[in-house]
């Protein structure tokens, strides 16, 4: 993890059945992570509105994560199919506007993947540190 003095603010939306549970498992397993992350819990990653993420970036979040169940394993059958399509698209739209798509992380973490949660969060935090502060709110 580079140390450039910048501590990013990172918001993650996690689904109750998979990624939130995976995050819990990471906690139970005492897997240490950078403290930049704040988690908002939803029942399904399909609930995560693109507008929320736009609002988050517009309000100054340096990085946003949307973490759901693996495709095919969604507790609500295929809610996460829409999640995938929406956020792949949002990444492209952000790029079109000049906002680095790497500031948006879309990934899939199951309830048993505590290790993966730690991994994904640590890597993303590191990447956002490299990218620097949110360019939207910066002068």
């Amino acid at each position, binding site marked *: 993890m580079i140390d450039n003095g910048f501590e990013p603010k990172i918001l993650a939306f996690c689904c109750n059945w998979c990624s939130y549970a995976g995050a819990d498992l990471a906690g139970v397993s005492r897997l240490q992570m950078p403290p930049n992350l704040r988690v908002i819990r939803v029942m399904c990653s399909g609930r995560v509105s693109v507008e929320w993420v736009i609002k988050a970036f517009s309000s100054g979040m340096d990085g946003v994560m949307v973490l759901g169940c693996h495709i095919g394993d969604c507790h609500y059958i*295929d809610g996460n199919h*829409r999640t*995938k399509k929406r956020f*792949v698209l949002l990444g492209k*739209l952000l790029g079109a506007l*000049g906002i680095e798509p790497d500031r948006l992380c879309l990934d899939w973490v199951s309830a048993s993947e505590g290790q993966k949660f730690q991994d994904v969060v640590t890597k993303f935090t590191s990447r956002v540190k490299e990218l620097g502060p949110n*360019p939207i709110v910066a002068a």
Partner: protein
Amino acid sequence: MIDKVRQIISDLLDRGEADAVLALANEHGNVQPYLYKKGDSLDNLVLWPKYSMGPIVQSIQNADPALKLAVVVRGCDDRALVELAKRNQISLFNVRIIGLACTEAEAKECACAHPYPRSIDVGDKIDGIVSSDELAEVSGKDYGGRLQFWKDAFARCIKCYGCRNGCPLCICEDCVLEDDAWVKAGEIPPPFPIFHLIRAYHLSDKCVECGECQSSCPMDIPLTSLYAMIREEFSGLFDYMPGADEDRKSPLVTSLEEEPIREGTA
């Protein structure tokens, strides 16, 4: 070209295939939508400047759902009608489309890449404008350059809602852009990029390339360039063009089995 349109309109009305035909007329020096009935003179018929016909069809059908309507449409109108029909705002069942292809000059005016409807009754299909100068300029920049370009452009926004009002596919009764929770009243310009990115996302599967947004904007914000970029990204991911297919549902709403993301794009 206009004579041919007149011919088609009077034929439809005479034969009773349409109760009324929606087109444009020059009334007292102003061009406006006009509903021609059997026996009306077609002298005041004009084809340009274009007018967004989608919302007009909606109003007519709300007032008289049983009316057998014909409507003169350009490519963008045709696409708008398809998308409105998909969303239960109009019915294409009793509607006869009179397809009008745009000229090169007309296509250039709107920087339109598809200046023709699905089926053409009048005019010749031309290739259309793939890229405007503005679009080329923005696409060539790196992230920092692009961001500055759009920040500068949207700094001019006075939140007049002209783009939203002019768009044939902005049909929500309760627009989130007027909801204080998302876009606070009184903030001019609205904080970047929330107003315009939310609208762009909402229209990513609906934009029919009519250019009304930019022509409505009093501040010369290059909206058609933004939407051209949006359409390109969307088409690249899903191979989907709004308005092309009445039966195809938006990829954003369906499962990955029904509408997958194209390989090698995600």
